[in-house]
């Protein structure tokens, strides 16, 4: 099991893991508040200023899976995998314009989740439930994929277990994570994010400086990668082929629309102390996108370094083992593993918040107390993490990847309800609900291929090119909601007023 363990790398890895574990438990005393209230446990008491939010949101969005998957796709198919960069260019103008409004209205009305706002705005608890379950179902495979990212680096350390021991290190890591998330809530990932992000910046800077020196410069790296793609027959390469252009563009747009609708993204944003902190972060968070782009280039570096792996997800770990001393590879792997902990914690908290607020409270126990809410959410966060662990144990990894892909297609379906709702109450809740349902079914149907789930399609032959199914289906969703709204006028009350959305700029 541990005969082939790379000891220097493993010791460094274990050291950093132990460090963040201590921090995770200590975090319950940080910016102390009554952790038996849901907005304290699940939103850090909305006490995070611009700096903490930068680390938390950055640590939350740029996950371990991203760090493994983006270079893996670029290693496997080249330029197309770089769609992550235009995608991250689109998200911040969107964050800047729309989300300070969401922060303002949620702060005013003490909403904690997207579902809370949806109910407040449209007075339709079925739409609230749809938003809640879309979020939870899209989040579960996403957490499972964080575990996949973590397991890749644990294997790269030389650990190979059999049978029940196969997932042993991962299970231990996850149980520890579950315990400190339970006790410290959102404060734990916020505090750990400082360590995680600092480590990621260090290893990325080291890699983009040192690897090109070893391999003869960036020109040589790209040339070497070009040769590998040419040898594969030229269907993929360093630039987009004509058939890849529209999928590339639509995938960037659709993914950008979906990103901030996920419960974990919203949890990170709503935990900010002021709307201004969100605006400042829209300016400063692109620093992470630059890092992500550079991590993507590591897929090409792996080719240039002669890394040959059957599973592209092993490309970056193997690159580091090959080009760096063991202790630094251990440091990098620890950064990636800790990079899994932060989003996994925030995701489970986001899912727990919405389960408690938008399913349990309206449908099961309307008279639940504030302390009851927090107690329930803590337990749900444990269940969500165990569920993700189970997904990994009993299902093939490919299934989790497919589910995550579908999760994006589903998640974007709440876009009209949530984002349009920030600007207008013209839409009726029922029309939005029908649009949502059609979008979910259509998006799933389009993605269902004869042999595998596919992200893009030509919309039953109506388009002359392939486009991202999430984008096609949400456009249909919007058309349906718009057409049905005049027919399904609702008289449900709107708890919010126009001025609730304005940024009441606090002069500090």
């Amino acid at each position: 099991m541990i005969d082939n363990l790379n000891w220097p790398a493993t010791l460094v890895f274990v050291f950093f893991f132990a460090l963040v574990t201590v921090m995770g438990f200590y975090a319950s005393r940080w910016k102390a508040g009554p952790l038996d209230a849901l907005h304290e446990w699940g939103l850090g008491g909305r006490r995070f200023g611009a700096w903490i939010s930068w680390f938390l949101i950055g640590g939350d969005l740029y996950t371990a899976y991203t760090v493994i998957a983006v270079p893996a796709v670029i290693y496997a198919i080249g330029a197309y995998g770089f769609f992550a960069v235009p995608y991250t260019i689109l998200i911040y103008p969107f964050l800047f314009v729309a989300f300070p409004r969401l922060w303002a209205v949620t702060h005013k009305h003490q909403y904690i989740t997207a579902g809370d706002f949806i109910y407040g705005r449209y007075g339709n608890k079925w739409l609230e439930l749809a938003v809640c379950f879309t979020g939870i179902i899209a989040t579960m495979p996403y957490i499972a994929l964080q575990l996949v990212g973590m397991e890749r680096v644990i294997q790269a350390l030389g650990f190979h277990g059999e049978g029940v021991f196969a997932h042993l290190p991962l299970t231990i890591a996850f149980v520890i994570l579950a315990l400190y998330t339970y006790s410290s809530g959102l404060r734990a990932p916020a505090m750990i994010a400082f360590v995680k992000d600092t480590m990621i910046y260090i290893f990325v800077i080291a890699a983009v400086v040192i690897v090109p020196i070893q391999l003869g410069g960036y020109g040589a790296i790209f040339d070497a990668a070009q040769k590998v793609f040419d040898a594969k027959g030229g269907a993929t390469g360093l630039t987009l082929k004509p058939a890849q252009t529209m999928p590339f563009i639509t995938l960037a747009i659709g993914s950008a629309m979906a990103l901030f609708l996920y419960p974990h993204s919203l949890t990170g944003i709503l935990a900010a102390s002021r709307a201004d902190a969100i605006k400042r972060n829209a300016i400063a968070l692109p620093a992470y996108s630059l890092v992500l782009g550079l991590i993507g280039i590591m897929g090409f570096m792996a080719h240039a370094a002669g890394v040959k792996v059957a599973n592209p997800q092993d490309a970056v770990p193997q690159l580091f083992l090959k080009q760096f001393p063991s202790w630094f590879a251990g440091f990098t792997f620890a950064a990636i593993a800790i990079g899994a902990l932060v989003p996994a914690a925030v995701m489970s908290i986001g899912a727990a918040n919405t389960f408690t607020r938008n399913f349990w409270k309206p449908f099961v126990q309307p008279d639940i107390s504030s302390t009851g809410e927090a107690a329930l959410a803590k337990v749900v966060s444990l269940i969500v993490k165990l569920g993700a662990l189970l997904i990994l144990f009993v299902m093939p990894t490919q299934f989790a990847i497919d589910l995550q892909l579908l999760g994006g297609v589903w998640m974007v379906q709440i876009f009209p309800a949530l984002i349009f709702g920030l600007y207008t109450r013209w839409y009726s809740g029922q029309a939005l609900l029908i649009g949502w349902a059609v979008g979910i079914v259509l998006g799933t149907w389009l993605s269902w291929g004869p042999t595998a789930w596919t992200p893009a399609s030509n919309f039953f032959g109506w388009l002359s090119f392939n486009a991202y199914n999430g984008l096609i289906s949400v456009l249909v969703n919007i058309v349906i909601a718009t057409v049905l709204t005049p027919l399904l006028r609702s008289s449900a009350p709107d708890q919010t007023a126009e001025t609730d959305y304005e940024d009441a700029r606090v002069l500090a």
Partner: protein
Amino acid sequence: MRYLLLLIPCVLALMTPLYNSIEPRLFGFPMFYWFLLLLIPVSALFILAAYKGEAK
């Protein structure tokens, strides 16, 4: 209306014919990569400008 300026980096990011080529290279990076990587800080500057414009 001033938010319309924010569309500029978004449109540039999606106009693949503009940058989908190997040449000209910059520090060895094919254009496809340096253009997109450079656009990230440029887009942040646009958001900064919108933020400054709001404060007035």
